[in-house]
């Protein structure tokens, strides 16, 4: 029993990580039709910025409020980078989908190389408050606090995103844009502003994933973002591109499946099951679980 609880909660922790990466990816794709290969870079930026801030930013540190500040700095850095990427690199290629993909591919290659050049290819120990390294007993299982932290963060982000999409003007524009971007323009709305916003949101969420993932794994390395990205892509496709809620469901399915099969089967079998799940979903329901709508 305790094993199942543990696997469920660590699976959910993994799902939380996937969700944080996939939600932004999904919105960016749904609204702007951009398959963003640089999204993993946003994650790495968040992780490195948090790591850097904990050591160098006045007031920030590896524990207590200092750590919150460091994470906030990382998230802000992710948002800024996301926004900058949209404004400088994506916008000039407006509606040229393939070129946009190519540019993000180039950016992911160059960005990771840049991180490597600056901080080396080897993993660096990540600053983390002591309490995140302890465990909390849940129904007899000793669950790592960092996993619980990830789950809580993902739930908060999900709630915040849904609230934003449902109750704000920009949320309305984004939801409408995911359905029919051109018609939003034809109502007199500059939909590109929403693109920038979505990139910023996606960048921030991915950066949060980077920071909390750093806490979870205990280290940070330039290639971390890339390896998470592939599973985030899978989550996006399974969940339905452009759907935040769909991403959440798909993330949970993928995280749990991976964790359980990897534990009870051979290591790595879970990853393969996830791809099999993707193939099945695509064959049965090519538009994903949710279809094309931001909040369903």
């Amino acid at each position: 029993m305790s094993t199942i609880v543990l696997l469920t909660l660590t699976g959910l922790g993994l799902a939380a990580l996937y969700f944080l990466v996939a939600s932004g990816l999904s919105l960016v794709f749904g609204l702007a039709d951009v398959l963003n290969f640089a999204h993993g870079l946003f994650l790495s930026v968040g992780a490195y910025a948090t790591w850097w801030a904990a050591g160098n930013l006045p007031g920030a540190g590896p524990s207590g409020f200092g750590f919150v500040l460091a994470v906030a700095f990382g998230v802000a850095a992710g948002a800024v980078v996301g926004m900058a990427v949209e404004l400088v690199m994506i916008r000039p290629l407006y509606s040229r989908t393939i070129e946009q993909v190519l540019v993000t591919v180039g950016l992911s290659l160059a960005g990771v190389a840049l991180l490597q050049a600056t901080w080396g290819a080897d993993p660096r120990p990540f600053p983390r408050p002591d309490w995140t390294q302890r465990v909390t007993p849940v129904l007899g299982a000793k669950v790592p606090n960092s996993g619980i932290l990830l789950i809580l963060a993902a739930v908060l982000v999900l709630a915040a995103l849904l609230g934003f999409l449902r109750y704000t003007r920009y949320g309305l524009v984004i939801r409408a844009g995911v359905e029919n971007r051109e018609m939003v323009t034809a109502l007199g709305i500059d939909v590109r502003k929403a693109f920038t916003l979505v990139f910023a949101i996606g960048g921030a969420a991915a950066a949060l994933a980077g920071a909390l993932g750093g806490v979870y794994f205990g280290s940070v390395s330039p290639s971390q973002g890339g390896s998470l990205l592939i599973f985030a892509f899978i989550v996006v496709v399974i969940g339905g591109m452009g759907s935040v809620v769909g991403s959440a469901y798909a993330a949970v399915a993928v995280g749990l499946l991976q964790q359980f099969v990897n534990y009870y089967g051979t290591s790595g079998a879970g990853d393969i099951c996830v791809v099999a799940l993707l193939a099945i979903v695509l064959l049965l329901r090519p538009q994903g679980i949710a279809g094309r709508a931001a909040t369903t």
Partner: protein
Amino acid sequence: MSETPILTVADLSVRIAGLHILQGVSFTVAPSGVTVLLGRNGVGKTTTLRAILGLTPRGGEVRGTVRLGDRSLAGEPTHRLVRDGLGYVPEDRCVFAGLTVTENLRLAERRGGVPAYDRVFELFPELKRRGRQRAGSLSGGQQQMLAIGRVLLNDNRLLLVDEPTKGLAPKVVTEVAEVLERVAVAVPVLLVEQNLAVVRRLADDAVVLAAGRVAWSGAADELLREAELTRSLLGVGVAGEPHAPAATAGVSQPVPAESAPVDREVSAG
């Protein structure tokens, strides 16, 4: 026409994926009343409206000038044109199916203006009642009301309305025509319409496209009076023609201009 036109289209050419959809279209829209854009299916009516709005798909090539009043619209982004008073009611309604009616309307509120909900709800009381309903679950007629309503929330200098009666039941067609008639009192309308009964009721001026060019333009009743002319230009009979064949989406090869008046017998009537 002695008045200064509200919209002037001069030598408009559109090439999409190598096909010349429009080849030098020129016409004007009077500052009041309804100007109807007519022509057979695939002749480029929708393309014309979309080119005016800057909505030509990527890879498409647009040449020529479009002026709203005395301002050139070339190269302006669509959203700015719309904010400047170019209201667009697209073909197939294009309401946001996942959003509620209220949200659809809220989305259409333009920056800087005061949304005229009174005007919209007076024309379409139905929209007020169904505010919380998802637009996707409305009937075709209701969706059309919503599509027109959201444009009327704002003050427009010109409305571009693309086939508002397409696929609607006869009774609803009449309702839509009534609404447009009332709307046209205040705002000039450039209307693409296949239903000749509606055209007869609304049109002041007419522009007929054939093979990517303007084949005829002038007062609408002049066109409709001449049965033979109408038949050759539009390929439809005039008397009692209830509804022209539904337009098919997509682009088709324009017929060479020389062979334009191919007779096609219409069984109806």
